[in-house]
């Protein structure tokens, strides 16, 4: 028997399918075709089947089925929990870049306006300066001119950024509960964004997770004999960047090992596993405290 989009054909007899394009498309996606003895469908078979009258109608109906099937498949792929998170975290990281660039520019601009002003010996980074400019702008009832307006925009953009970060972190805890518990929602989401999805992340080896986001350093190491990178994105986690230099590489390695397991738990089980988390947290803490200990 051969199954085509318009019906089943067995021993010269054809059983047509009924139903609209969406039903038909769903059925087509369930058909399992063996390619060893496959003969492609012919439009005349469909006519004999009574599905259509001529070639034009065949193509018309087929296109409806194809479009419906592709729409279903696209919708299904987008419905996966990690797809939107991916866009959210990438937006967040790009907002960071934009806010930093604009803040630096506005600080430069402000210095031109106030020739005696300098950021040197002040503990004010550019974004704090931007905030004070925008506050002054508000106090003067918006009389700060173009500079004040830009500063206000930057401030409101960074407020949006803060609330987006909260959403990202919350969503990450839902999508990847184990990974987020180990490394925090934001960093977990960044790992996800670099890997390209939860499925992809769960299939990475621990050594790749360890240097995810350190691409330049990694290739410099492979090409020349530069020292190997010890950590990529996971450096953003406090346990890595707070560790003393001599154990930092080790903490990163142990953490990456546990993250690889966590990502697999997230992908295949999809719920938090307290026994694993407790054990993993203890293991990572041990790696960070006493040098020489914590070898597997």
């Amino acid at each position: 028997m051969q199954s085509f989009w318009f019906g089943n054909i067995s021993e010269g007899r054809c059983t047509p399918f009924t139903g609209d394009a969406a039903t038909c498309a769903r059925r087509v996606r369930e058909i399992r075709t063996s390619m060893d003895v496959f003969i492609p469908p012919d439009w005349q078979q469909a006519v004999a089947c009574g599905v259509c009258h001529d070639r034009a109608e065949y193509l018309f109906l087929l296109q409806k089925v194809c479009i419906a099937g592709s729409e279903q498949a696209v919708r299904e792929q987008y419905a996966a929990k990690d797809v939107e998170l991916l866009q959210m975290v990438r937006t967040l990281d790009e907002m960071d870049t934009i806010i930093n660039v604009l803040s630096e520019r506005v600080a430069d601009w402000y210095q031109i306006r106030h020739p005696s002003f300098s950021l040197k010996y002040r503990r004010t980074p550019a974004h704090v300066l931007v905030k004070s400019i925008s506050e002054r702008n508000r106090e003067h009832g918006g009389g700060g001119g173009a500079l004040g307006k830009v500063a206000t925009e930057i401030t409101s953009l960074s407020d949006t950024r803060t609330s987006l970060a909260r959403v990202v972190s919350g969503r990450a805890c839902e999508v990847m509960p184990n990974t987020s518990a180990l490394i925090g929602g934001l960093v977990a989401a960044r790992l996800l964004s670099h890997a390209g999805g939860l499925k992809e992340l769960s299939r990475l080896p621990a050594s790749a997770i360890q240097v995810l986001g350190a691409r330049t350093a990694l290739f410099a190491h492979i090409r020349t004999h530069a020292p190997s990178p010890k950590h990529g994105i996971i450096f953003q986690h406090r346990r890595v960047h707070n560790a003393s230099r001599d154990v930092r590489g080790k903490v990163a390695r142990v953490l990456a090992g546990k993250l690889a397991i966590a990502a697999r738990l997230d992908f295949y089980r999809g719920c938090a596993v307290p026994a694993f988390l407790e054990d993993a947290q203890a293991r990572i803490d041990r790696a960070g405290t006493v040098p020489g200990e914590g070898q597997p």
Partner: protein
Amino acid sequence: MIRVGDVLVSKGEGGVYGERMLDGYRVWDPYRSKLAALYLLGTGIGLTPDMKVLYLGAANGTTVSHVADYVEVVYAVEFAPRPMQDLLEVARRRGNIMPILADASCPEQYAPLVETVDLIYQDVAQPDQAAIALRNCVFLKDGGNLILMLKTRSVDIRKQPEEVFRDTLDILMSAGLIITESTWLAPYHQDHAAIVCTR
């Protein structure tokens, strides 16, 4: 193939991707489409109004829309959902494009939909491009043609493009295909070659 002066064009509704129009025809830019580059640099396979085409790696439907202007029906296979959204939009306005979201290396996914075709056009960024083409030859009629746009950098970034090119030709010939034309697509596309075969 229709040309206005030296410019390759196709006849159809414009505005698909902001292409230029010339005497009412849609200009087919060789810098954007590898197939257009092939027609300008070599001979390729002339597209005729009765042709059925299986197009692997349809992407956003840019080249697909031009092919559809020439032929009877295009079965457009694309794997990624994001470009598929664009392709669906193109298909809704052209009755002869059949969009299929599937993996070109698994023909069984779209076997119930695709009839026997006169031409297979393949433009996929995968390492096993020759194998994918051979696996899809079940849809190709005897005496039908295959146009393989070989992305040498996708096959193996460490090998020389010429080496990848020779290896691919060997694989295709040992599978019983007859190579009728093979050309590099420079200056329009770097490290891309077009291979035309007959079954």
